[in-house]
């Protein structure tokens, strides 16, 4: 399976080096309405281009953790992230594994997957 941004990913040794199989509900901090910028990895910033996880997307395995991370953003930065979206990610949707902490995953979507359709905004009362 080819991953999105695979030309950059393939330049990094052992990237990604694992995968957690199975379907998982994963939550992402996004701006509302969702657009392409909501799924742009930060590997495009030169200072991160050699960091494997910078070519994946940050997601959380539960809504509470995603909300806590939103609250941890500065007021200025929270302009870029003002909502949480959720998607059911299957094995055929790409690579995913835990990084940094128990609730955080890095998700490498497969090439050309329509993430705008895949992720849905979580309403406030959920």
């Amino acid at each position, binding site marked *: 399976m080819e991953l999105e941004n695979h030309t950059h990913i393939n330049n990094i040794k052992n990237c990604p080096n694992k995968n957690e199989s199975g379907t998982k509900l994963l939550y992402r*901090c996004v701006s509302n309405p969702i657009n392409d910028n909501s799924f*742009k*990895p*930060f590997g495009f*910033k*030169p*200072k*991160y281009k*050699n*960091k494997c*996880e*910078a070519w*994946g*997307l*940050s997601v959380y395995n539960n809504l509470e*953790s995603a909300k*806590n*991370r939103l*609250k*941890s*953003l*500065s*007021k*200025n*930065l*929270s302009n*870029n*992230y003002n909502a949480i979206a959720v998607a059911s990610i299957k094995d055929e949707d790409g690579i995913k594994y*835990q*990084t*940094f*902490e*128990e*609730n*955080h995953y890095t998700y490498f979507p497969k090439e050309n997957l329509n993430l705008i359709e895949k992720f849905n905004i979580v309403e406030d009362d959920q």
Partner: protein
Amino acid sequence: MINNNQILNPFLSDEFVHIEDIIVLDEPILSHYVRNEIDYFLYLVDKETNFDKYLLFHINSWTICEYFIGNMSLLEVINSVDDFIYILDINFDGELLEKDIANPKTINKNYLPNIDSKIFFKPLENSLYYKIIEEHKNKQYINELKKSAFYMKISPKTSKYGHTVGLKEMAETLFKKVSESYSAFTKADFTNKFERIYTELKEFKNKLSIVNNEIDFRLVDAGINSFEIGLAVDRQMKMTIEDKKLREWALKVGDDFKATILDVNYSDDRQVELILEKFSPEQRKKIFTPMFEIIENKNFEFQIKNNKRSKYKTIKIRDKFTLEKIVPIENKAIEVKNNDLEIVQVTTLVEKGKNLKTLKIDQNTLFSSTDNTNIILKYDDFVNHGYEKVDSNIQIKVNILTNNGLVFFQTIFDNLPFEVNTNNSKLDDGISLIISKLYEYILNKE
């Protein structure tokens, strides 16, 4: 190759060691660095078209752990910074464009997170933070208990061992006796409060057994140089006791013991009266006897204080009458036995030359009763009692007679009277005494 450390250029970036990224939203939002053993947080606060804006500030390890376990929000962490905060503009190549310094109290509010910015960080098992957080939680438990701990101290009255306390002294004086007193107190207090509620013995014992496992004090602090300990009631664990009445009693009993038994002003009549009203003499005996043994110990001074910061006060009992009021001395009836003794002469047959300690009394034994008889003390008798420096030919006749429950051993030796008496039926005791008296005379004469 640009790496994470280089985004801190020109802060001598090699000195800043990247530890871990804590909050990540694709890119690190909050990261932990160390420089010269000082911890720093680097916090991404804004994105401009061509650069990112960060806050860099010093943080201590305690605050890091408090933040991780959700006791502090990120806003509180930033507000707790007691020196200054760097504001860094760093471009996408990791080059520092601008550097500024701000006071945490006057920093731009748009750079700060939500008031509710708690994280509840759960590190992966292979993370550096995993063990640190576990140790911090354990310390937290003890620190929480320490806040409500009271302290006891025993101070030696001599400086023979530099005011240090011996292991045995400490174990037998402080630990054992306080523990005995506490056990007696909890049993007495439980009985006084619950014996009318749990009227069936089996149920009563069952309930007491449930709480007994939960009411031990936790030892949360200790100091040497005189020996002091901090004891605390664990309120958390007691919440596992399901019965509300028992739980409430268990939560209170430790504090009651401290107030009623340890921290007593024995000069205050009201406090003494309260003790007398609250406990029966038998209960008081069990509770206060071990405590009085500590307080009255000639080698130590016993002191107590309400918390770590307060001053110690010495517990004394000035008036022995108070002591006896609380633990009355028992008057034991002394049984006086009046034995009337008589000498019984036994005639029987034994093998010649045999030195018998016991005789078989049977139908062939003849008895006759008398109130006096005599024996001849010879050299062997002296030697058998440990006295060897006598004439080997010595022979001293000793009269044995009984009168009014006493056995008299009398003799004349060197024209001098010698007499001893015993009140028991063991002839050998009397013989021992008279031999000893005679031997003393013989030695002094020489």
